[in-house]
């Protein structure tokens, strides 16, 4: 029996992940056809429910759903101040009335997509909730890495940046580890929690991480400007000097043939310098393209209980 919802990576087993990755390949093949659409979800209603603004993830899901011939509605959620006061039940009441078969939810509060999923027959897809999970990002990351390393077992990925607040770090590290990839975290001591996972090496020094861990790919997380208010580190410039991919570090990575990934949108001059975008092993644009195929695979693989 197929899953109703796609909420996090933690609850997927290795076989399910591999199946989702395998299924993303035929979808990616479609992109080169003259007709990029297939009728698999013809007549189905997909509701985009984004409580947090996100142009990229929203468009990626819209394209994915449309290429499956679904009818896509983007629900205009009012300002986030409203969402703070709204209970799950209020949200559900709104959704029931819209009779969606699939609901793609992004929410600032961790656990909201799961709470919605428990109360609706529609398939709920988590498009990012709080600092909890971003499972479709994880899937596209794994897919992108697998294109470069068909045998993923034993490969090494260094996830760098704001581990503490990042749902991408949580989901992507989880999916990669389930596929046998070795993951390490690197970032300022204030942003790499010691409690994250006893099995994931934790580095707070770039050079040490590179020399001791020897990554095949460096995965850069976006540094949110609002983290500066708390503050967790002194300045953007200091972050860039200590943890960013500078021209010098890029030369070093190029020498080793190391891939660079980033979930976007990027902060030039913080996580990376401009030259990274011209680096032949920078996978950022592949990640974007693969995101559509990965999301089509997820939509296709779920089974709503709406009929």
């Amino acid at each position, binding site marked *: *029996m*197929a899953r109703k919802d796609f909420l996090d990576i933690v609850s997927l087993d290795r076989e399910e992940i591999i*199946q989702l990755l*395998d*299924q993303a*390949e*035929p*979808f990616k*093949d479609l992109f080169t*056809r*003259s*007709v990029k*659409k*297939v*009728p*698999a979800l013809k007549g189905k209603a997909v509701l985009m429910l984004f409580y947090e603004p996100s142009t990229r993830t929203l468009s990626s899901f819209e394209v994915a759903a449309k290429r*499956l011939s679904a009818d896509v509605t983007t629900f205009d959620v009012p300002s986030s101040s409203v969402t703070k006061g709204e209970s799950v039940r209020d949200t559900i009441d709104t959704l029931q009335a819209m009779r969606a078969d699939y609901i793609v939810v992004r929410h600032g509060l961790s656990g909201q997509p799961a709470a919605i999923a428990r109360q609706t027959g529609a398939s709920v897809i988590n498009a990012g909730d709080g600092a909890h999970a971003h499972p479709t990002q994880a899937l596209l990351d794994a897919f992108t890495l697998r294109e470069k390393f068909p045998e993923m077992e034993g490969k090494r990925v260094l996830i760098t940046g704001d581990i503490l607040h990042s749902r991408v770090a949580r989901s992507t590290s989880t999916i990669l580890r389930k596929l046998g990839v070795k993951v390490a975290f690197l970032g300022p001591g204030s942003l790499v929690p010691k409690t994250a996972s006893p099995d994931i090496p934790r580095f707070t020094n770039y050079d040490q991480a590179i020399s001791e861990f020897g990554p095949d790919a460096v995965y850069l997380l976006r540094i949110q400007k609002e983290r500066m208010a708390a503050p967790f580190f002194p300045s953007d410039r200091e972050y860039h000097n200590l943890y960013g991919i500078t021209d010098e570090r890029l030369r070093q990575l190029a020498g080793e043939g190391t891939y660079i990934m980033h979930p976007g949108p990027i902060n030039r001059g913080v996580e990376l310098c401009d030259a990274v975008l011209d680096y032949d092993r920078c996978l950022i644009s592949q990640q974007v393209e693969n995101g559509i195929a990965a999301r089509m*695979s997820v939509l*296709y*693989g779920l*089974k709503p209980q709406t*009929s």
Partner: protein
Amino acid sequence: MSIALDQSAISTALSRLADQLFLDAGTDTIDLVGIRRRGDEVSERVAALLKEKGANVRLGVLDISLYRDDFEHLHENPLLQSSEIDFSIDGSRVILVDDVIFTGRTIRAALDAIFDYGRPAAVELAVLIDRGHRELPIEPRYVGATLETDRLDHVRVGLMKTDGEDVVELTQK
């Protein structure tokens, strides 16, 4: 359960398909597109026979999972595999190949699918077995064997590469 076609009957049916196709094609290239699963194996074997005759054959595989009309009734969506059509079908005379034709719904889905790859000049249909009971106005031009069945009978086709044996079984309800 009874054996409707044994190994040699299947061989005969495949040869019959190859003969008809060769006869119609003349010197033209024959573009076979097998429908997953088993249509691909039928098309491969027919292609081998055609090549023995000296015909020019191009072979493709079509996965129609995304075009099926029965998603609602399945517990799990069918496992998706890639379609592999390496040649341009624009202007070509495409022969769709499947193992069995029954209601015609699979072929309808395959027709939808093939037109999303391009605009063929013509599409023909070749099947190893025609068991009747069509629900759509679709008829194969090339038939390897015809089987008398009741609507509720179950026909199981086994092919060497896919199933490890060549056999067609008929289970009567």
